[in-house]
C-alpha cells in the first residue's frame, strides 16, 4: 500500500527541477532508497529507537540507576495505562497505585534465635519467588500521567568528554506521574525500572557499536589502503595475514581478549572502550580486503589516469579521487555491519566477559533473561529482548535496502 502511495506521490512531483543534475552521490542513494518500502519503514523504526536511546533520560520516567530504584516495588509487574474504568472516563491516561505486600516476617522471633521460626520462614511462601511478585492494586487511587514533569537532573547533551565546555543539563522528562513512579514495563529484582533501563541500554549498545565500527574502519582503511595502493610485496604480505585472520573464528578471539581485559584493573568506562576497541580492531579482515579490491579496480579507472596526466600527485589522487569513490560504500558497509557488532557485544556480555551490571547495555539485560527465575516469574523482563529484536531487524532491513540503493554510479547507461 505504501508503495502505491509513494508512487502517486512521485508522479505529482514537478519534473523540471534542477535537483537531479546537481545531486551528489548521497542524494542519489537517498532517492533510490526511498523506493524500498520495507527499508523506509525499517528506517523510521530504527530512527525512533536510536533517537529514544540517545535522549533516553528525557524519554524515561524513572532514573535507571540504583538511585532511582523503587525499593517498595521490587519485582513489580508492568503498570497498565487506562483511559477509562468503572469510575469514569479520563482524557488523560492514568494508572493505579500499586503497592507490594510486605512479606510478614517474624524477624523478632528470628532474632531470638528461634530455629523453628527460621524453618517456618524458609519453608513458607514468604520467600518463594512467585509470591514475591504479589502486589495490590488500589483502583481508587488513580495516578494521572503528566507530561514534561520535573524529575531527576540529567545532562541532555554532554560534550565535556570531547573537551568542549558544553554540558546541557535538564530535569524535565517526557512523562511521569504526580506521586511515586510509573513502571510501564515493571521493575527488576532491585526495583529498577525496566523501561528506563532498556532505553538507556539502547544508546550504550549503539555507542559501543559506533566506537567499534570506527576502530574497524580505521584498521580496515589502513590495511586495505596500504595494501591496495602500494601493491606488490606489501600487498602480498598484508593480504596473507588478513586471510589468516579471516579464517579464525572471531568470537573466541574476542573472548580471549576479554579474558585478558578482565585481569586488568579497569573502570567500567575504560572497560567499555576496551571492549569496543577489541571488537573493532580484530574485525578488519573482510572490509580491509574489500577496500583493497575496490582500490585496485578504482585505481585502474580512466579518471585516475586522467588525474595523473593532469599532474596530480599520489596524495592528491588518494584524497581527491580514491577516498571519495568509496565513502558511500564504506557508510553502507558500516550500517550493514551494525547488527553483527551488536551481536558480538551481547555474546560477550552473555558469557559475563563484556559489560556487567550495573551498566545498562542490551547485552547485560539480555543476559538476565536467561535466569530461570525471570523466565518463570518476571516475564516482563523480556521487554529488552523485544527491543533488541526490533533494533536488529530494523538494522538488517535498512541494510538490505541500502545495499540495493548503494553506489548510484553502478548502472551506466
Amino acid at each position: 500500500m505504501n508503495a502505491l502511495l509513494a508512487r502517486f506521490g512521485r508522479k505529482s512531483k514537478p519534473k523540471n527541477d534542477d535537483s537531479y543534475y546537481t545531486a551528489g552521490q548521497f542524494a542519489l542513494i537517498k532517492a533510490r532508497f526511498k523506493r524500498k518500502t520495507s527499508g523506509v519503514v525499517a528506517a523510521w523504526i530504527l530512527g525512533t529507537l536510536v533517537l529514544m536511546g540517545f535522549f533516553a533520560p528525557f524519554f524515561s520516567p524513572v532514573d535507571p540507576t540504583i538511585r532511582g530504584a523503587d525499593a517498595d516495588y521490587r519485582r513489580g509487574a508492568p503498570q497498565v495505562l487506562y483511559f477509562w474504568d468503572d469510575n469514569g472516563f479520563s482524557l488523560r491516561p492514568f494508572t493505579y497505585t500499586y503497592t507490594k505486600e510486605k512479606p510478614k516476617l517474624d524477624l523478632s522471633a528470628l532474632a531470638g534465635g528461634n530455629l523453628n521460626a527460621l524453618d517456618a520462614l524458609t519453608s513458607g511462601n514468604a520467600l518463594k519467588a512467585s509470591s514475591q511478585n504479589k502486589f495490590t492494586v488500589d483502583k481508587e487511587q488513580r495516578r494521572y500521567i503528566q507530561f514534561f514533569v520535573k524529575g531527576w537532573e540529567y545532562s541532555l547533551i554532554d560534550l565535556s568528554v570531547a573537551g568542549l565546555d558544553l554540558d546541557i543539563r535538564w530535569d524535565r522528562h517526557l512523562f511521569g506521574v504526580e506521586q511515586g513512579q510509573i513502571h510501564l514495563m515493571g521493575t527488576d529484582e532491585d526495583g529498577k525500572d525496566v523501561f528506563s533501563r532498556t532505553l538507556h541500554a539502547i544508546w550504550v549498545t549503539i555507542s559501543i557499536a559506533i566506537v567499534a565500527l570506527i576502530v574497524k574502519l580505521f584498521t580496515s582503511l589502513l590495511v586495505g589502503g596500504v595494501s591496495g595502493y602500494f601493491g606488490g610485496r606489501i600487498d602480498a604480505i598484508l593480504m596473507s595475514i588478513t586471510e589468516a585472520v579471516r579464517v579464525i573464528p572471531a568470537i573466541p578471539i574476542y573472548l580471549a581478549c576479554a579474558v585478558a581485559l578482565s585481569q586488568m584493573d579497569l573502570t567500567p568506562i575504560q572497560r567499555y572502550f576496551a571492549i569496543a576497541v577489541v571488537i573493532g580492531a580484530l574485525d578488519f579482515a573482510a572490509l580491509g580486503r574489500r577496500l583493497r579490491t575496490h582500490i585496485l579496480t578504482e585505481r585502474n579507472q580512466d579518471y585516475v589516469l586522467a588525474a595523473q596526466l593532469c599532474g596530480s600527485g599520489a596524495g592528491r589522487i588518494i584524497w581527491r579521487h580514491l577516498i571519495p569513490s568509496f565513502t558511500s560504500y564504506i557508510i553502507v558497509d558500516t550500517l550493514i555491519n551494525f547488527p553483527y557488532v551488536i551481536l558480538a557485544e551481547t555474546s560477550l556480555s552473555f558469557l559475563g566477559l563484556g559489560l556487567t551490571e550495573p551498566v545498562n547495555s542490551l547485552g547485560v539485560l539480555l543476559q538476565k533473561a536467561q535466569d530461570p527465575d525471570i523466565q518463570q516469574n518476571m516475564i516482563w523482563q523480556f521487554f529488552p529482548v523485544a527491543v533488541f529484536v526490533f533494533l536488529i531487524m530494523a538494522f538488517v532491513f535498512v541494510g538490505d535496502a541500502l545495499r540495493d540503493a548503494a553506489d548510484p554510479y553502478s548502472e551506466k547507461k
Partner: protein
Amino acid sequence: MIAESISNFFADSWLLWILLSIGSLLWWSGRDSQYFNYVFNRFVLALITLLIVSGIVFSLMEVLPGDCAEKYIAYKNTQGETITQADIDAERARMGLDQPLAIRWASWVTDLTLRGDLGFSCAKRQSVNLALGDRFWMSFMFCMAGLVFSYLIAVPFGILSAFTINKTWTDKNPQHSKTERIINSIGLSCQKVLDLVLRIVSYLGLALPNFLLALTIILLYVFAGESMPTGLYSDEWRNVPWFGTDGFSWGKLDDFLGHIWLPIFVIGWSATALQLQTVRALVVDESNKLYVDAARARGVDGVALWAGYPVRHSISPLFNSVGFDFQRVFNDLPIVAIVIGLTDAAALLIEALAMTNDQELAAGILFLVALVVISMNFFTDVVLAAIDPRVRKSVLGN
C-alpha cells in the same frame, strides 16, 4: 635396532612426509599442466596461511593469564605441598616456558608438522589430541549440519527474493485486460508478501540471540512437561550401545535425533540471514546480465530459465564461500553448546578460554577450526578451477 629407529623416525614425522609427498606430487604434475601448477601454488599458499594462523593463535594465547607451570604447581598445591616462587621458576625452566615466544612457537609448529601433535594441556594434564578426541568431529558435524540447514532455507528463499525484488505490487500493463490485471496483481502481491514474510523469518534468526533462542525452546519443553532436549542423549539411552544384542538400536537413534536437532536448528537459523542476503545478491546480479535476456529470446522460459541461467551461474561463488560460512557457523556454536549442555570441542573452547585459561587446548581447537576452513577453501578453489570455466579462465588465464 636400526629398523626400529627408522620406524620410530617415520612414526615421529609421518605428517611431514605426507605433506611433502602431496606437495612433490602436485609439483611434478604441475610441470606441464597449468591446472596442477595452480593446485600446487594453492597448496603452498594454504600451508603458508596455516603457518600464519598458527602464529596468530599462539601469540594470542599469550594474553590469557597464567601459564602451565603456575597451573601445575597450583595443582600440586592442592595436593598439600608448599610452593615457593623458586619452585615455579624451576618448573618453568623444565617446561621450556622461560624461552622467548618465537622459540616456543617454533617448537609447537615443529611438533605439529612432524606428528600432528597439538601440544599438552596443563589444565587437563593430558595431550591436547587426547583431550579433544572425537569431540572436534562432533563440533564439525554440528557445524556442517547447521550449514546444510541454512543452505536448505536460504537458497530457495534467496532465489524467490531475487525473483520478486524488482517486481511491482500491482500489474498496470495496459495490454492486459482488466481481469488479467486483477489476477496478476493478486499474484504479484502474494509473491511480495511471501518474500517479506520469509525475509522477516530468516532475519529473525539473526536478531534473536541464539542463546536466548535455545533457552526459550528448552523452556517450552519445561512448560510442556517433557524432558529437556539438552545434551546428546537422554539419561536412559546414554549408556546403551549402538549395536546391542538385538541388532542396531533404533531407539537410541531416535533419541539422538530428538536431541541434536536443537543445536543444528539454532545455529542454522542464525546463519540463514547472511546466506539469504548472499544468495539474493548473487542471483539478482546474474539475472540482470544480457545472457539471461538472450536465453529468453531463444524461448527458454519458466523454471528452465531461472534454474539454468541466473541460478546456475550463482552456484560457484556460493560454493566458494563454504569455508567462511563454516567459520561463521562455528562462531555461534560455543555459546549454544554451553546453553544446551553439549560436550563438544566448542564447549571445551569456552571452558578453556573463560574458565580454566587452558592456552594449549584453546590454541589447538582454534587451529583446527582454521585448518578446516583453509582446507575447505583450498578444496573449493581447486574444484571450481576444474569445473567452472569462468574460474578456470580467471585463474589459469586461458
